[in-house]
């Protein structure tokens, strides 16, 4: 990435305009979105950001117009002939506005669900971010996450030693809870399942990982799974900065690790965008050709075990009202919606839906990587997260379960900022508290959340 100060204003204009003109050659999806929008405003009605604060800058159509106007001006016949009458206008050179606005879209794809033509503004947002990234203008907070992840294979920059000591700690915790040794295998070659969580599920909210360890224990499959001390964070911010090269570079070590471990399944943890990249993009798009393993999700797997009657739970361990927040990347982008509900209904006494849900759920306000950006904390608290807070309040839930580290971080900050009376955590967290091992559930009761 080049230093932004060395690029002249003219050069920036030229680069941006050329990148926009290139949309004429594809991808098909972007070209169609440039030409098809009927400007009906339905996306604005359904956008969490516009809901939070209905200003021009936050109207999804006008955000997408940052690219669309210039495209019209330079490539479409109507744009060339009618100019401003048709909404065509040249790029004004204001990259600051550009970056701010494209990093105010959470990429939740809710607009695409309701748009009569299925226009997915997140695709345009990602293009806008990709153009900024090429110019080295990605916000520093995001840049540093990508850099850390490419260097260390995890977004926290944790070393294999730090990881291993976190795992030791989790094993001790489980020993306290159940009085027995429940293993979290690390770097075991030949293990059938290679567990790839978000690093947060090891370092920040580790209960999801203990939940999964307990499932394998109960099934008598302690030796059939493993984690990797080198690759323990599926998070991949190349998706969010729009940089495909970074995204693939971040992805490759995980695929290599699965192959070198000889695993049959890449067992993805509770991380929406990581699963989306592995399943919907890497595996389906055959980035690295045919693979000797399959990408599966931990919630699918656990739900199957519950439905087969292989696990037992003491629901009284989770007496509070619990609701599920569908992360956009699991719900709309991967279709994993029933499995987390199977797990929560089996492990909680009072499961409540929030409305709308599943594919129509509102974004937490931290999607598209925004959750990691503390420089826009106020925006996330007051604008993009507003609808979510209202939705959760309506359920009366005291615990919001969600399968995404970014959603969790956004929720934790929302709770603190708005002094809200509920907690947030993962799906397997609830399972970890209620699962019966040798006839009884965990003894510990002093949970932080």
């Amino acid at each position, binding site marked *: 990435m080049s230093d932004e100060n060395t690029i002249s204003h003219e050069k920036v204009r030229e680069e941006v305009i050329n990148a926009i003109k290139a949309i004429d*050659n*594809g*991808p*098909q*999806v972007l*070209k*169609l*979105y440039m*030409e*098809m*929008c*009927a*400007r*009906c*405003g*339905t996306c*604005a*009605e*359904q956008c969490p950001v*516009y809901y939070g604060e*209905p200003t*021009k800058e936050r*109207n999804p*159509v*006008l955000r997408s*117009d940052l690219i669309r106007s210039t495209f019209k001006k330079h490539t*479409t*016949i*109507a744009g060339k002939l*009618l100019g*401003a*009458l*048709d*909404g065509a206008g040249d790029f004004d050179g204001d990259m600051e506005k550009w970056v701010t606005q494209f990093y105010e879209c959470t990429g939740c*794809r809710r607009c*695409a*669900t*309701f*748009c*009569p*033509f*299925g*226009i*997915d503004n997140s*695709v345009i947002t990602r293009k806008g971010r990709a153009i900024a990234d090429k110019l080295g203008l990605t916000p520093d907070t995001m840049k540093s996450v990508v850099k850390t992840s490419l260097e260390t294979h995890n977004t926290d920059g944790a070393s294999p030693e730090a990881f291993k000591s976190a795992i030791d700690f989790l094993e001790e915790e489980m020993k306290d809870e159940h009085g027995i040794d429940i293993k979290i295998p690390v770097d075991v070659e030949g293990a059938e399942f290679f567990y790839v969580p978000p690093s947060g599920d090891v370092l920040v909210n580790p209960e999801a990982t203990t939940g999964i360890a307990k499932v394998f224990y109960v099934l008598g499959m302690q030796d059939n799974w493993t984690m990797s001390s080198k690759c323990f964070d599926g998070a991949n911010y190349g998706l969010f900065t729009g940089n495909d090269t970074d995204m693939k570079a971040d992805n490759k070590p995980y695929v290599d690790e699965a192959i070198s471990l000889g695993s049959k399944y890449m067992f993805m943890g509770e991380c929406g965008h990581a699963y989306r990249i592995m399943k*919907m*993009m890497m595996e*389906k*798009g055959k980035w690295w050709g045919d693979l000797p393993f399959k990408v599966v999700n931990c919630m699918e797997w656990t739900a199957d075990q519950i439905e087969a009657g292989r696990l037992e739970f003491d629901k009284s361990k989770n007496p509070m009202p619990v609701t599920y927040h569908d992360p956009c990347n699991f*719900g*709309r*982008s*991967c*279709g994993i*919606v029933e499995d987390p509900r199977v797990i929560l209904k089996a492990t909680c006494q009072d499961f409540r839906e929030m409305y709308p849900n*599943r*594919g*129509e759920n509102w974004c937490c306000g931290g999607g598209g990587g925004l959750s990691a950006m503390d420089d826009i904390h106020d925006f996330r608290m007051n604008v993009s997260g507003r609808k979510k807070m209202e939705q959760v309040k309506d359920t009366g839930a005291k615990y919001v379960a969600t399968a995404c580290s970014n959603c969790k971080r956004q929720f934790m900050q929302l709770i603190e900022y708005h002094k809200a009376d509920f907690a947030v955590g993962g799906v397997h967290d609830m399972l970890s508290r209620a699962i019966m091992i040798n006839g009884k559930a965990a003894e510990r009761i002093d949970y932080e959340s």
Partner: protein
Amino acid sequence: MSNLIGLILPFITVLIFVIGMGYRFYIWTKTPQPGKMTLFPTPTPGGGTFISIIKESFFFPGLFKGDRSLWIAAWVFHASLALIILGHLRVFSGFFDRILINMGVDVDLMSSTGGGAAGILILITAIWLLLRRFALRRVREISNASDFLALLLVLAIIFTGNSMRFGEHFDLEITRNYFAHLFTFSFAEMTLPQSGIFWTHFFLVQLLIMYIPFSKILHFGGIFFTQSLIQKS
């Protein structure tokens, strides 16, 4: 003037529309699309995707959930438009009348009730769509001049069309005769209709048809592309 609008322009209109849309479809199909854009819930595999795209294109279920009042206006507008386009087939040839009469349909009654209702409904919904552009903030701030102009053009077409139905006497036989000759290129025997409002209507319609390939109105064809892009499972 009527020679120009009645004898020359129709061929230009058809050429521009067919070539314009054909070119658009060709380019869209040819533009590469790496990877899929799947949006859940997805249709059931097999014929599900096709059925779902047809459903989206004919009934707008996404919009139904997303903005109910716009759905009413948009759906009634498009459904009336479809009826009106079908109704116009009568103006081009007596062929359809004969089929309908054979089926025992009272063609004139059907035309005056069905066609009349469609004419009024499309007028109301087009005005609704126009007012909506002014009334709702989220729509006002995204509306370009071309959005208003397209609606005003449509309204002018509806208005002149309705005046022929509800106002001045419309001579079906002369008009049919004109189109029959136009379609068979037999210009020598052709008599042009003598109605100013007819020529205004016909001119504006051609203007609209020519504008379609270059405007957002091409969504009537593009919707199949955009919907299939996100509905692939």
